[in-house]
């Protein structure tokens, strides 16, 4: 019997086995459900961003009206003066967004563990409390959302197992294996062709699901070939399980023994190894309770405020040498006000220094995770899916970096314009908006 004939015959066998058909259908339904979950989160985040943008427009228009009407600020807050850089920047309504990628349809990843929008002022930090994730039931987050990556990574090995678990062993137990071997070119070709049928069947299902997902969020508009990468990575993942299971089938003779081994491998790679790695990292590096960051936000910040003006000013001049010779810096009647307004530059520097060890610790944790990839493939594939979906830890780290850049931009403008004696008018305010909000 030729390999192709065996392959095609397996198709008939599959078509006559309602149990296997139901298993595959359930897998596909779960995939579609998962894709819709991802697409819903993507759309919800876009809607939320849109709503925030509408509010931002209103807030900004209010400030622009002050300029148009020759007012300095809201009546109830007489101390506000939007012609000063300090207040103009404060009221620039700068938001930073972690815009969802259309590929979020494939993996929700860590998207529900972080916030995706933040109002940024010169007093902000990327670790502020408002960086908290969207409101959600923690038990649901703990259970995880059934997204496409869950289906591809955790249900795929199970459906493959269900489809191929009794190949060869069934015939062996029924006693007609020798009869088949007489008709077949070789035992290995016979087993391989049958496994290959299911391998391709699942791979085809995965491709169709990926393409279907792409239609939900316009993944096709992306030019970076992410869809191709996901098809490829799914192929390799399927190959990983296919090879493992096939090895068991080639060697094993009993259905029970084969199933036991396959389930054992499934549990080992999807549950035990990732869970043990997670536990190990938690022991080596317990959850950071952010005491250093807290110290920076309170006591160390206070120490800065307690510095003599000359010392604080010298620190500021060190950071911005160009302001040292400005008229305001030299004018003893004005330099104290300018220093007070610019103090955020010093506190920002302090916050950045306190954040660095936190980020270093996270980096080390990630390196620990990555060092296990060679024996912990499921975690590798999960993180690969997350990266391609823009929901990986690194994507949120970049978002934090983007926030820090935005804070730095505001502070730079605040210091330079305050010491430069800039009077903010409507064009200057619009210029601020353009400068601080180039991602919106």
């Amino acid at each position, binding site marked *: 019997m030729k390999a192709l004939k065996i392959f095609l015959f397996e198709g008939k066998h599959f078509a006559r086995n309602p*149990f296997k058909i139901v298993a595959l259908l359930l897998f596909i339904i*779960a995939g579609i459900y998962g894709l819709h979950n991802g697409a819903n989160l993507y759309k*919800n985040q876009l809607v*939320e961003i849109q709503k925030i943008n509408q509010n931002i427009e209103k807030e900004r228009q209010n400030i622009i009206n002050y300029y148009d009407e020759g007012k300095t600020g809201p009546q109830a807050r007489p101390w506000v003066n939007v012609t000063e850089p300090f207040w103009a920047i404060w009221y620039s309504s700068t938001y930073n967004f972690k815009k969802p990628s259309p590929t979020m349809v494939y993996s929700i990843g*860590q998207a529900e*563990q*972080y916030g995706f*929008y933040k109002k940024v002022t010169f007093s902000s930090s990327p670790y502020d*409390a408002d*960086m*908290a994730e*969207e*409101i959600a*039931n923690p*038990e649901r*987050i*703990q*259970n995880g959302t*059934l997204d496409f990556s*869950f289906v591809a*990574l*955790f*249900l795929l090995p*199970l459906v493959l197992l*269900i489809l191929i*678990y009794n190949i060869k062993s069934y015939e062996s137990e029924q006693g007609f294996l020798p009869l088949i071997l007489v008709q077949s070119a070789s035992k290995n070709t016979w087993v391989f062709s049958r496994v290959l049928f299911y391998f391709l069947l699942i791979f085809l299902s995965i491709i169709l699901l990926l393409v279907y997902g792409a239609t939900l969020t316009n993944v096709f508009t992306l030019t970076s070939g992410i869809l191709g990468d996901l098809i490829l990575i799914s192929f390799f993942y399927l190959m990983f399980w296919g090879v493992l299971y096939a090895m068991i089938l080639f060697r094993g003779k009993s*259905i*029970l023994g084969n*199933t036991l081994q396959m*389930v054992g491998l499934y*549990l080992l790679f*999807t*549950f*035990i190894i*990732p*869970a*043990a790695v*997670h*536990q190990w*990292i*938690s*022991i080596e590096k*317990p*959850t*950071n*309770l*952010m*005491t250093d960051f*807290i110290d920076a936000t*309170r*006591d160390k910040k206070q120490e800065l405020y307690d510095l003599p003006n000359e010392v604080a000013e010298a620190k500021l001049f060190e950071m911005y040498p160009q302001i040292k010779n400005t008229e305001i810096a030299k004018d003893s009647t004005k330099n104290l006000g300018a220093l007070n307004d610019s103090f955020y530059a010093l506190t920002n520097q302090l916050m950045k220094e306190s954040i660095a060890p936190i980020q270093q*610790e*996270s980096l080390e*944790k*990630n390196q620990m*995770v990555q060092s296990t990839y060679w024996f912990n493939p499921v*975690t590798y594939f999960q993180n690969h899916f*997350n990266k391609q979906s823009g929901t990986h*830890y*690194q994507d949120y780290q970049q978002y934090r970096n983007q926030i820090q850049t935005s804070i730095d931009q505001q502070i730079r403008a605040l210091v330079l314009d305050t010491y430069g004696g800039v009077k903010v008018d409507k064009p200057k305010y619009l210029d601020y908006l353009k400068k601080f909000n180039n991602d919106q």
Partner: protein
Amino acid sequence: MWTIIKNEGNFLRRNKILLLLSLGFVLILITSLLMGNKQVQQQSLSYETAKEHIRGQWESIKEMNPHSAAHYGTYVFKPSNLLSSLDEGVNSVTGNVLRVEGHVQNEIVHSEASQMEVVSKFGKLKSALLLQYIVPLLLIFLAFHTVSSEKQSGRLKLLILQGAKPFSLVIAKTMAVWLYGIALLVLVIIVYAILNLESITGEIVTRTFLFFLSYATYYFILTGLAVFFSVRWQNATVALTSMLGIWILWTIFIPNIMMSSVEKWHPLPSRAEFKAAMTEDRSKGIDGHNPSDERGKELKEKVLKKYKVDSISQLPINFDGIRMQADEDYGNIVWDKHFGNLRDVQAQQKASFQLGGILNPFISLQNTSKGFAGNDNLHHQEFLLQVEKYRRVLIKQLNDEHAYGGSKSGDWGWKADNTFFKSIADFKYQPIALKTVFSGYLIDVMLLLLWALFILFLLYRGAKKIQVV
């Protein structure tokens, strides 16, 4: 029946593969307990250090204006629970640090899950992971052919001829495999007890006992169902694949879909909506820093009348403290309304999820496991509530000191001394009374018991229809 159970036990003992598998599994279970315990110890140490550090800072305030102290605030860290080494529940996804300050009820931040990339979809290697996902599979593998193999070998006919009743036989087969699961469960409990001998309290013993009972009932359900399939189907493979299908549906598929669905049935507001609604309600109240507000005027008149004076400057106390406390009181009404709504919606979600136990006893098991371990959302919400109560007491003490401590209105430079700050008690978390926890999970316990009765009924029916030949 006991003879059959004993025989089954002997059979299991003689099975070398099973012995090896059991040995390997016992090693993994013990490792999970050791690692779980170590991790809880590390986290507790980290918690104690952070707690002492923050308390030390508070107690070392030499002198400070009470309102400045309210802004300085303090921090509360979520403590680890001893039973976290068995089931850590929601702890890795909830935040750990909560800022306590004036004017605002903050949200808990800095979860463990947000501090690194994804490692394990099913959490850490805790006993609960093994007991929920892996022991059931072992039981399925042991039970799926217990009766069918007897049928195929002809032993069943022999046993019946010797006087064994089919129902007794089926029950005995179920019990034999179930006892294997119980043995693993007992092992976990014993090792856990040995590792935590010094810290065990009556409360922990009761919680662990309830934890044990939930798992024991679930194992009976699963084993009984596998034996029922073995009775009903001639072909052991069909029984096995059916049980595997049920395992996938129960443990992976349904809980996930169910939890996602209940969040759609009872939607929570988005963060932006939630904040906007609170700001809106808050703006209706007095502004803590703005005495020109309408409510501020009313309050001012009331206080002036009480002290029988004409102006704030004549007051023997500091009106700012009273005004700020009034603002806090109004704010508390707003927080209670909105945070209360969040808790209500989450309670509705939980109630709907618990009903999922009708279809899937694994849902009931998951609920009781993390609930009795004290690491579910109910306990998390209680922790948040206790912190908020503490915040209110703390801020009231600060505002009262500001008002009645000896300063006059407008005197923002006045400072309270170190004795005052030291006199303010630190936050202490009191776990929920077991009675409350039990009542919250009564439905899950009932559903597990109903499932057990249903399985008994199935076994009875199955035994009645058993085909001996």
